[in-house]
């Protein structure tokens, strides 16, 4: 059975076709990143208008690449929360229209749940329980996943998300948007020294699995103005900031895995595409004898394949939604 997934919660318009929950037939992503680079971020009204312009073409391409027609779609999955309301509405309207016209189930998916499910596209036989770190521009959370649809939150950011910490620190360092990707590139290609500038890692108490990145942001804002560090090359700056963020994410995730006694760790969200995070996490998991799954970049950043995958498991559990489906700007997954 083919599930059409649709994702428009922020600045990517995406549609995907997933066959039998395992076989990803297509995953088309139209990014607005070039558009938003001019303003340094997402402009909601512009984002919505772009989604409207692109959604039909993106869906048509997803079907064409998958080699199927509209009549072959067995269910439609769509991200309806959380996100920019105007943007979500575009995907949800398209999904409702198709579900109604084709008379197939409509499956509403939580965007963060879908990020977690990107891992099932890599390994459909993951055994529960697992610990999953979701790190993106808007989220930094550690979940214990005990079964399909069964999430327990173990830790979350108390202020900035990890991706936001990357982007805001990058701005303080004078790097272009999107700052996180640029920081990763600069640190890697310039072989930056991660110990060049000492920066804080918030512990928040011995048992806490929460994150805090606002102290790092303040520390960076002071350090860049400090003559002591004036001669530090950009690559060393990038590596130092990146290491502080990666350290915090890795230490807390491993601590969560140990506390819960799981032997498998999953990464999810756009920040999981960071090459240094993958390296450090891989080393740490190997040391602790833990399995690690990291989806490829195209499944880490916003995409519809993960929506279709989460939708597949909703359908297995008979979690079908009605045509009165609403969009919501914020909602906790757990």
């Amino acid at each position: 059975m083919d599930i059409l997934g649709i994702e428009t919660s922020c600045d990517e318009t995406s549609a995907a076709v997933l066959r039998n929950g395992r076989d990803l037939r297509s995953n088309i992503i139209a990014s607005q990143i070039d558009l938003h680079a001019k303003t340094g971020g997402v402009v909601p009204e512009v984002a919505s208008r772009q989604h409207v312009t692109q959604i039909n073409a993106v869906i048509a391409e997803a079907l064409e690449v998958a080699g199927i027609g509209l009549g072959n779609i067995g269910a439609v999955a769509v991200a309806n929360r959380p996100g920019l309301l105007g943007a979500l509405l575009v995907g949800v309207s398209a999904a409702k229209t198709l579900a109604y016209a084709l008379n197939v189930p409509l499956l509403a998916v939580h965007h963060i749940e879908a990020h977690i499910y990107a891992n099932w596209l890599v390994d459909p036989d993951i055994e529960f329980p697992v610990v999953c770190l979701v790190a993106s521009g808007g989220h930094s959370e550690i979940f214990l996943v005990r079964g399909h649809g069964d999430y327990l939150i173990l830790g979350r950011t108390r202020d900035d998300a990890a991706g936001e910490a990357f982007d805001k620190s990058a701005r303080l360092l004078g790097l272009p948007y999107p700052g996180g990707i640029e920081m990763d590139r600069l640190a890697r290609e310039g072989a930056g020294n991660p110990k060049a500038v000492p920066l804080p890692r918030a512990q928040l108490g011995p048992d806490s699995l929460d994150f805090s990145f606002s102290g790092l942001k303040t520390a960076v804002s002071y350090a860049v103005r400090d003559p002591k560090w004036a001669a530090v090359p950009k690559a060393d700056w990038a590596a130092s900031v990146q290491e502080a963020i990666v350290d915090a994410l890795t230490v807390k995730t491993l601590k969560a895995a140990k506390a819960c006694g799981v032997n498998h760790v999953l990464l999810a969200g756009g920040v999981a595409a960071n090459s240094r995070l993958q390296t450090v996490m891989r080393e740490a998991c190997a040391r602790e004898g833990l399995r690690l799954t990291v989806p490829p970049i195209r499944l880490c950043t916003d995409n519809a394949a993960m929506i279709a995958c989460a939708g597949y498991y909703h359908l297995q559990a008979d979690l079908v939604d009605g045509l009165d489906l609403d969009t919501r700007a914020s909602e906790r997954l757990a």
Partner: protein
Amino acid sequence: MIRNYQTNSAEETRSLASNLGAVLRPGDTLCLIGDLGAGKTTFTQGLALGLGLPPDEPVNSPTFMLLAEHPGGRVPLFHFDVYRLPDSSALYDLAFDEYLSGDGVVVIEWADRITDALPPDRLDIAFIAVSYDTRQITVMARGERAKEILSQL
């Protein structure tokens, strides 16, 4: 009407904001102005406490999502962050006006980016990082209701 405060830790900033939160009513608007790391989100966390939200309510920076809604307190808190908006024209899509005239308290981080869209009766709160831990917080009442709030502090 202007008041100046100095706080020497994030905890003190939250405590000041909590006192302010305790006297707020639906329809009140607070505009937070200050650089990266100046204490705007920390202040909003204190406001949430003062509005009666539970201490474990995650009040994070809404930079990425632009808006975070926090129902569940004495008065709902609508937390905007317009850091990523180039100007106020983009607010339409966020239903900004509806929140201003809604049943909650509206807090706007980086409000100086959208000055033409702000209501006339509001509290402007400016943050300056004097040192690593010390913040100078200046609260300016613009309008009658804002003066009333400030006189209760």
